């Protein structure tokens, strides 16, 4: 058949009902004759069905919220829209140029000016001590300060003069110099704002000139550095070199200049090239935090609602890093002005973490009367981080006490007390642990007492332990607090482990338990592994947070799962339980007892629980020990005694199938492997248990 392209096209259109009547007739006629095309048509329909059956993906629900804030930013920016990157680079370059021009002029006028500059120093008493440059300070030209750029006119903040001027210092006392006029004539030439041409007010202006010069020099250096880094970034971007782009962003984080902030803002908005867009954006966000100026904070806050949550997540840590006073001040101002609860909450949380005491006042105000409970709680917590007077928090707790609905705030107060770690608050925390009506507040109190580490809390913690539900989070917190304060890792009583098989029940007391699990190939059958998994899940789940555990799996080799035994806190247990299927993968090997036992006996475990089907056939030559001491091998007793580090009790759980001999002690003959496990338990102060596994 001549199924050319045209036919194929018709076929495809026919499947969609998009043919003209003539075409329909034609293709139908063709289909009658051509089996291939009938198959093709069916194929098209199947594929179409499959594609149409793809699930409808939905965007992140937060998308619309982010869009709203992006739109707001967009409309704010609409007026001052400029081309990306290039604009930044150009403005940076322009800044360099302007600064250079200024410098050329000021350099020309500098020698003439100097005496005049010194003149006011002698007359103006209040600024004199700071301005008169001391040689020692002056020698350091690199007084780094981005802020000075803005503070030029304030005489108090003028930084020491560059070296070349020290030489002229002796000239200072000279009250009138003929050069004054010259310099005055020179001044207007330099296009620097703030410099006044008339002689009387020239002093401030002069001082400004000198400071300005230095500030400008600094600014120039920064702008140059920024421009260089930006161009490096551009080159990397064009090449699609992700490492280069990231490196450039990291470098610019060290350049505290407005150009860097503007540049980083663009990076956050536009990303770089290639798949690393978000990584780069996150890097830029972190860099903004590092720069930490007011502008940096502003951009970070506007980024917080940026489309990609991956970037939004990077904002709080970046905000926390802000160390510049005006950056923090800006955040405080935003906190006071903002109406968005999410933003206020973020700011309340991060202001505390900046550790800047300036934030204390707004936090106090918010902690007292903020309407939104989350913002208020965050503010309270920040009070703890900022080191408020402990009395404030103690009083606050007392005030909130009667109100049962205010537990969330009490929890925040209690957390803040823990963060504050002031010994005088121990009574309040103990009271909270004993009497607070809300369990989560009591839990928080336990945690805070642990942070505080005051020994007075021990009796109360012990009492609370008695009534607490074992294996609850509260219990865990109590034990953790007790362990921290008393420095006794065995704080609390040793707890029982309940071993159970279909027929037996046994309680074992242990502080540090080690599970040995046979993962040889024979364990792969009849749901043995699944049974062990369930048992372990049960036993681990019932452990108390002050008990330790570890797991070893063995076949002919041994694998210790955790390097150190873990405390059975709910988190750790949950992690282990989640990993159990991975841990319990069987190997295609025969089990070997010797390496695993020597390793297990060498740990600090006080209890060893062995799960095995025992079917490591104790063949002569293969095995390194046996029950009888035949063939010159050590007996189990000899072996364990030789290798034992601690007086660990060994409990063995044999997983048996009906094809094997009965484990009943009095039944004879007994399989040697089962006998071995029994001996292992009885020789080591433990017990032997068994579980039947019927045939599949």
């Amino acid at each position, binding site marked *: 058949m001549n199924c050319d392209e045209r036919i194929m096209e018709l076929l495809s259109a026919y499947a969609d009902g998009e043919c003209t009547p003539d075409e329909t007739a034609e293709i139908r006629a063709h289909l009658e004759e051509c089996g291939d095309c009938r198959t093709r048509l069916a194929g098209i329909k199947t594929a179409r069905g*499959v594609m149409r059956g793809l*699930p409808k993906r939905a965007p992140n629900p937060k*998308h619309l919220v982010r869009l709203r804030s992006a739109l707001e930013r967009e409309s704010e920016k609409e007026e001052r829209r400029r081309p990306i990157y290039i604009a930044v680079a150009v403005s940076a370059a322009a800044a360099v140029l302007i600064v250079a021009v200024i410098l050329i002029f000021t350099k020309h006028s500098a020698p003439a000016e100097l005496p005049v500059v010194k003149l006011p120093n002698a007359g103006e008493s209040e600024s004199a001590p700071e301005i008169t440059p001391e040689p020692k300070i002056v020698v350091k030209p690199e007084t780094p300060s981005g802020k000075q750029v803005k503070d030029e006119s304030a005489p108090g903040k003028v930084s020491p003069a560059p070296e070349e001027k020290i030489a002229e210092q002796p000239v200072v006392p000279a009250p009138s110099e003929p050069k004054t006029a010259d310099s005055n004539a020179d001044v207007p030439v330099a296009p620097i704002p703030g410099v006044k041409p008339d002689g009387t007010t020239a002093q401030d202006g002069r001082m400004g000139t000198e400071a300005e010069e230095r500030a400008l020099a600094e600014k120039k250096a920064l702008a140059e550095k920024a421009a260089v880094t930006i161009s490096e970034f551009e080159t990397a971007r064009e090449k699609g070199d992700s490492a280069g782009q990231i490196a450039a962003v990291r470098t610019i984080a060290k350049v505290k200049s407005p150009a860097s902030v503007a540049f980083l803002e663009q990076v956050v908005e536009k990303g770089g090239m*290639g798949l690393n867009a978000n990584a780069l954006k996150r890097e830029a966000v972190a860099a903004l935090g590092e720069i930490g100026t007011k502008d940096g904070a502003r951009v970070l806050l506007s980024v917080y609602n940026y489309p990609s949550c991956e970037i939004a997540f990077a904002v709080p840590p970046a905000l926390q890093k802000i160390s510049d006073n005006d950056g923090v001040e800006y955040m405080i101002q935003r906190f006071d002005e903002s109406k968005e609860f999410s933003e206020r909450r973020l700011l309340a949380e991060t202001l505390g973490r900046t550790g800047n005491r300036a934030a204390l006042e707004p936090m106090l105000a918010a902690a007292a009367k903020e309407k939104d409970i989350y913002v208020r709680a965050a503010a309270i917590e920040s009070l703890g981080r900022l080191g408020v007077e402990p009395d404030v928090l103690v009083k606050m707790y007392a005030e909130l006490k009667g109100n049962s609905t205010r537990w969330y705030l009490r929890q925040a107060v209690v957390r803040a007390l823990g963060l504050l770690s002031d010994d005088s608050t121990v009574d309040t925390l103990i009271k909270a642990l004993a009497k607070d009506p809300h369990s989560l507040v009591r839990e928080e109190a336990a945690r805070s007492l642990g942070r505080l580490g005051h020994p007075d809390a021990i009796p109360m913690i012990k009492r609370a332990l008695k009534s607490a539900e074992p294996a609850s989070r509260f219990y865990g917190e109590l034990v953790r607090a007790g362990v921290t304060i008393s420095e006794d890792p065995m704080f609390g009583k040793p707890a029982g482990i309940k071993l159970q098989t279909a027929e037996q029940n046994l309680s074992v007391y242990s502080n540090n338990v080690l599970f040995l699990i046979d993962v040889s190939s024979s364990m792969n059958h009849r749901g043995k592994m699944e049974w062990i998994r369930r048992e372990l899940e049960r036993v681990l789940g019932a452990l108390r947070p002050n008990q330790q555990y570890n797991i070893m799996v063995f076949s002919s080799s041994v694998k210790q799962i955790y390097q150190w035994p873990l405390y059975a806190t709910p988190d750790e247990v949950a992690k282990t339980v989640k990993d159990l299927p991975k841990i319990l993968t069987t190997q295609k090997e025969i089990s070997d007892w010797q390496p695993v036992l020597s390793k297990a006996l060498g740990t600090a475990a006080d209890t060893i629980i062995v799960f095995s089907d025992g079917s490591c056939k104790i063949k002569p030559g293969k095995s390194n020990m046996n029950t009888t001491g035949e063939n010159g091998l050590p007996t189990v007793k000899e072996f364990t005694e030789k290798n034992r580090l601690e007086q660990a009790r060994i409990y063995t759980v044999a997983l048996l199938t009906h094809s094997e001999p009965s484990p009943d002690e009095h039944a004879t003959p007994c399989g040697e492997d089962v006998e071995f496990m029994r001996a292992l338990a009885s020789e080591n102060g433990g017990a032997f248990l068994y579980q039947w596994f019927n045939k599949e």
Partner: protein
Amino acid sequence: MGGEFILISAVTAYRIKLNFCTRKSEQFANPGVYNNRQQGDLLMSTDLRALTDEELLIRCRKADNESAREIVGIVAERYSRPLYNYIYRMVGSEQLAEDLLQDVCMRLYRHRRHYRSVAKCSTWLYRIATNLALNAIRNTKRHGNLSLSREADETGADYASVLPSREETPDDIAARRDLQAIVQGILVEIPDKYRVVLVLCDVEGRSYIEAADVLEVAVGTIRSRLSRAREYFQKKFAPHIRELEAK
């Protein structure tokens, strides 16, 4: 005289089309949730919400910034799900799709004054989305990051479609997810200009005319490209069918 007649008939044709569009777009309308809306806002928006997409966009052309944002927000709410799905099927990466979706909305806002009332809103949006998606694909390809397409996996799909129906066994579900991942994997491997048509017509179920409107090409072009695209798809999909049947 003749000119006038043509003009009138064009206008009528457009009206008819517009009606058709409005009905069609309802199918895509998917009211999202705006929790943090304030009271005053709501009053105004109920008003706006009664309008069709096209009416909104026409209003948006002359609106001040705030109401323009409001309108774009409403349009975005109506279209974000279908657009996201469309973009995702094109680029095969959730993150990228989300970023692009945001870009589409931002473009809608920025270029609100350029909206021509002759165009259907959904067409306009899909056109923007197509261009942005193709650009993004080209960019990533140019920088050798083809692995992008491999990101596709169906585990994160909408819950409704992943939740098992009553008769399905876990194996069936796994197989279905496999199948979806395979299909998505093939989609992103098809050359751009064919993929667009395939996604529009076969995944989205658009008619040839609609697809032609979005891509600004003739219907005949859509027909031939779709046929080609299907051949591509078949070629890559055939081995998997056998594989799936073997299971």
